[in-house]
């Protein structure tokens, strides 16, 4: 019997895109429906440790380098106008408003997003998720809710940590050029940082964390086709997360500027 060829509303690619968007929206809806108690506390704490503690070395090195490099690169431009005294404020604004949230999110998308995508993908193709389901356990709650909560909670913590280490890097660079105390540097740096800067960065990183977690979980949870599918899930988790983080950053900047 000859089967009817499938018809598409516009094109296969566009149909697939909207199907994926619909599936992700459903996945997010399922997350919120299952957010209530009882909570898998042990798993949430384990995931916070994996997301937060295990990312510290990479975040530390990256933020320290960013602090030094950004300060070093900014100095000549400010020196031209004799405004090197503005350097701490300039660095602080750049770090708190943009660099720390964005770089933390990009590092997390690469490290945490790929890890979640690969881990859940591997669990899916080796039937571990099915095993949880048949043992009368809710795998979505155990695997997805705990991971998304962990990324949403830990990314703001990592962001503030990154901002602090970047400022230390910036201070050391300034110290190599002029004599200033750590306290004086921080007072000068933070006087230009408003509550709105802190608050917007905090909300932004919670949203980034949620997106990274949910995308990684979605890709892994729905992985198919064996080991190839695991690789694809990890890859898509990183690429999609980064893309979404950039889009969210643009939107967040617009919204923050309305309030400023």
């Amino acid at each position, binding site marked *: 019997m000859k089967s009817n060829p499938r018809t598409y509303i516009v094109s296969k690619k566009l149909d697939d895109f909207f199907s994926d968007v619909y599936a992700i929206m459903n996945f997010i809806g399922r997350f919120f429906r299952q957010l209530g108690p009882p909570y898998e506390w042990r798993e949430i704490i384990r995931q916070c440790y994996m997301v937060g503690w295990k990312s510290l070395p990479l975040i530390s090195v990256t933020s320290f380098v960013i602090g030094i490099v950004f300060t070093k690169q900014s100095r000549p431009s400010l020196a031209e106008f004799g405004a090197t005294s503005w350097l701490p404020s300039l660095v602080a604004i750049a770090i708190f408003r943009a660099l720390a949230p964005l770089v933390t999110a990009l590092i997390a998308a690469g490290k945490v997003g790929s890890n979640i995508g690969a881990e859940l993908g591997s*669990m899916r193709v080796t*039937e*571990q998720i099915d095993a949880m389901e048949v043992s*009368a356990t809710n795998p979505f709650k155990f695997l997805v809710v705990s991971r998304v909560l962990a990324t949403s909670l830990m990314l703001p913590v990592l962001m503030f940590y990154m901002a602090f280490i970047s400022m230390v890097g910036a201070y050391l660079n300034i110290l190599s050029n002029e004599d200033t105390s750590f306290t004086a540097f921080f007072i000068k740096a933070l006087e230009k940082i408003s509550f709105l800067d802190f608050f917007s960065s905090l909300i932004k990183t919670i949203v980034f964390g949620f997106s990274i977690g949910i995308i990684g979980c979605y890709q892994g949870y729905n992985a198919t086709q064996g080991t190839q599918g695991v690789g694809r899930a990890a890859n898509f988790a990183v690429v999609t997360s980064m893309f979404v983080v950039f889009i969210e950053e643009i939107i967040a900047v617009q919204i923050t500027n309305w309030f400023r």
Partner: protein
Amino acid sequence: MHKKTRYTIEDKHADIVIRNLHKSFGTNTVLKGVNLDVYKGENVVVLGRSGTGKSVLIKIIVGLLKPDSGSVIVLDQDVAALNDKELLQLRLKIGFSFQNSALYDSMTVKENLEFPLLRNSRNLTKAEINTDVEEALDAVGLKQTINQFPSELSGGQRKRIGIARTLIMRPSIMLYDEPTAGLDPITSVEINSLINEVQERYNTSSIIITHDLTCAKATGDRVAILLDGNFVQTGSFEEVFSVKDERISSFYEYNFIE
């Protein structure tokens, strides 16, 4: 080795009743009106070539897949009519042993076994949980592996731990998906014995999915042959293979003569 069947159909009460079950994946129809009864305390072996829908059948029984049409009644409950909560309750009475064991990689053997207990028997004390874990490990003869990770176990040990994880909830029904696949003949014999021990010790009704005739012979009270999406023959091992059907005899010859 033949199974010495201790089982008799006394009251003819079926724990699993499958009627006119259909399932397709796209244009590929794997089950075409399957009917099967599994009686209390009975081991039914479903034999068939790879890709004939054997695993699909047991995944439908446990509600992991939905059938296109037909009904599956498990312990007097229609699986398709159950809501999520009722399905979870039913699953507590069903043990599912996966083809590749599906042990949780990030957990030790103890944590693997505790996992269903902690989530479904919340009023158990730590001591009671430990006792249950040790008892289940004792039943599969692997007490010494309690603190090991799945990656440190052999294929046969993983299968046994997978079975222990299902036994810990004391199921009424056991579903085994290819229990001897990928194992050497000696370990396969051990797994076959374990399946029979589980039947005797826990009085479980079981479906054993396999294409291994030695396993079928050793564990099955009844054998059902799935070909082209339907059962073509059901009965004892001897009855099934005494029928003059080229499709069945070729299956036998490939297994035992080659």
